[in-house]
C-alpha cells in the first residue's frame, strides 16, 4: 500500500509544480527591468506604471468589461426564464439538452456558425455581435446551474404564496428568486469570467475596430512580445483569484440564507 501511495504523492507534487511554475514565471518576469519580456535583468515596477497609459490595453480592457457585464445580465435573464419555464412545463430531456448544448459545442464550431449567420442576416461585426455570441454559451451555463437548483425547490412554496394572496410578480421576486439566489450568483460569476476570458468566439465575431482584451493579448503574443504582457497576465491572475475566492464566499453566505 505504502509504495503506491508514495508514487501517486510524487506525481501529485509534480502536478502542482507543473501547474504553478509557468504562472509563477509570468508573475516573476512582471517585475523585470528589461524591455525584453523573456529575459531577466533586474527588479523594477516600471511596467506596472506604464501599463496604465497603454491605450490599446486600457480601452480593450474597458470593452471586455462592458461585454462581460452586458453578457452576464442578458444570460442571467434568458437563462433564468428558460429554467423557470422548463421547470413549470416539466420539460423532458430534449429541451434540457437543447438549452445546455451550447456549453458543450466546440467553441470553434459555434464561432464560425455565428460568423456565417451574422453574414447571412447582414449584421456587421461589432461588440453587439460579440455580446450576442457570448450570451449564447453563457446562457447555457446559467441554465445548467439554475435548472439543477430549481428542481430542488418545493413547488408548494410558490403555491403557498399565491394562496396567501401574492401576485405572480410578487411571488417571482419575493419567493422564487430568493430561493434561486445561490445558483444565480454562481451563474453570474461563471458568465462574467467566461465572457471576460473568451477568445475564439470573439476572434471570429468581433469587428476590427473594437478588439477585446484577449484579442489584444493574442496579437501581443503573436507580433512581438512586450513586457507589459507579464504585468497584464499577473493582473488578470490576481483578478481571477480574487473573483474565485469572492464567489465562494458569496456562495456560502447565499447558501446559508
Amino acid at each position, binding site marked *: 500500500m505504502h509504495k503506491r501511495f508514495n508514487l501517486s504523492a510524487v*506525481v501529485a507534487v509534480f502536478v502542482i509544480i507543473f501547474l*504553478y511554475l509557468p504562472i509563477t514565471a509570468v508573475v516573476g518576469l512582471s517585475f523585470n527591468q528589461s524591455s525584453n519580456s523573456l529575459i531577466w535583468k533586474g527588479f523594477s515596477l516600471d511596467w506596472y506604471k506604464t501599463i496604465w497609459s497603454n491605450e490599446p490595453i486600457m480601452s480593450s480592457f474597458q470593452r471586455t468589461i462592458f461585454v462581460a457585464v452586458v453578457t452576464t445580465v442578458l444570460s442571467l435573464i434568458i437563462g433564468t426564464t*428558460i429554467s*423557470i419555464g422548463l421547470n413549470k412545463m416539466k420539460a423532458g430531456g430534449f429541451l434540457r439538452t437543447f438549452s445546455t448544448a451550447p456549453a458543450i459545442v466546440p467553441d470553434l*464550431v459555434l464561432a464560425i456558425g455565428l460568423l456565417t449567420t451574422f453574414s447571412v442576416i447582414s449584421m456587421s461585426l461589432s461588440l453587439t455581435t460579440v455580446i450576442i455570441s457570448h450570451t*449564447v454559451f453563457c446562457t447555457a451555463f446559467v441554465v445548467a446551474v439554475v435548472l439543477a437548483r430549481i428542481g430542488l425547490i418545493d413547488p408548494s412554496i410558490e403555491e403557498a404564496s399565491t394562496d396567501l394572496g401574492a401576485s405572480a410578480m410578487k411571488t417571482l421576486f419575493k419567493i422564487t428568486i430568493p430561493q434561486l439566489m445561490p445558483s444565480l450568483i454562481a451563474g453570474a460569476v461563471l458568465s462574467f469570467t467566461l465572457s471576460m476570458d473568451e477568445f475564439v468566439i470573439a476572434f471570429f465575431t468581433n469587428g476590427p475596430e473594437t478588439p477585446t482584451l484577449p484579442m489584444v493579448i493574442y496579437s501581443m503574443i503573436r507580433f512581438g512580445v512586450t513586457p507589459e504582457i507579464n504585468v497584464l497576465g499577473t493582473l488578470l491572475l490576481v483578478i481571477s483569484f480574487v473573483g*474565485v475566492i469572492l464567489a465562494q464566499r458569496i456562495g456560502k453566505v447565499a447558501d446559508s440564507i
Partner: protein
Amino acid sequence: MVKSGGSKTSRHLGWAWASPGLIFLTLFAAIPVLSMLFMSVLTAGRFGGVTTPINFDNFSRATDPIFVKVIINSLLIASATAILSLLIGFPTALFISRLSRKWQVILIVAIILPYWTNFLVRTYAWLVLLNNEGIINKFLRNIGLIDKPIEMLYTPAAVIVGMTYLYLPLMILPIYAALEKVDKNLTEAAFDLGSSAWKSLRTISIPLAMPGILIGFIFVFVPSLGNFVVPELLGGGKTVMIGNLVRDQFLKARDWPFGATFALILALILVVLISIQSYVSKRVNVNA
C-alpha cells in the same frame, strides 16, 4: 369556468416563460451550428460568404494527402495530450481522493485556480519557460547539463505540453469525483484479501474510476482537437491542426464552405468519440 386542467395551465405558463429564450437559442445556436454543418456542400462566394450550386467537391478536396495528414496529425496530438493528462492526472486524483476532507478541498481548489486564469496568458507562460533563453534552458545550462540551448519551443511536443497544461484540471476533476465516491473500505478489503497494490489498483480503483476517466478524456480531447491558438503560438506555425485549417479557410482563403467541411469533420470525430464514451461507460456501469 376555466375548462383546462391545472397541469395544462402550468405547461402553457412554462412555454410562455421559456419561449423567448428558446427562440434566442434557436436563432443564435441551433441554426448557426446546423447551417454551418450543411454549408460544406455549397460553393464559396467571390468575397467570402456562400452561394449555390450544391456540390460535394469539398469532400474530395479534403481527401488531398496534405489535409489528410493534418487531420491525422491533429488526432495524434489530441490523443497524446489526453493520454499524458491521464497519466499524470489519474495518480493525482487518486492521491487527493485518499486525503482528509480538508486537504481534498485545498488541493482541488489549488488545481482549479490556474484554470480560471486567461488561457492566452497560460499559453504565453510556456513561451516564457520553453524559449532558448527561458528558465528551463537557463537552468540546464547553469547546472552544466547542456552548453547549447535545446530547441523546445515550436515543436509538436511543446504543443502537447501546452495543451496538457491548459486542460489537465478537466481530467483530474471527473476522476477525483468518481474516486471520491468509492467506498474506501473496498480498497482496504482488497488488501486484507492479500491483493498486491497493483492488483487492487487494476481490479478496484481503475474500474470504479472508469466513468470519470472517460469523461476526463473527452473533456481534454475535445478542446485540444479544435484548438488553433496553441499550435500557432507554441508550435510556431510548424504544427498545423484542424482548427488552423478552419481558421485559415474562413479568415484568409475566404472559402467558407471548405472551412465548414473541416468543421464538419471535426464535429463528426467528436460525435463518434462521445458515442464511444457513452457506450463504454454504460458497459462499465453494467459490469460494476
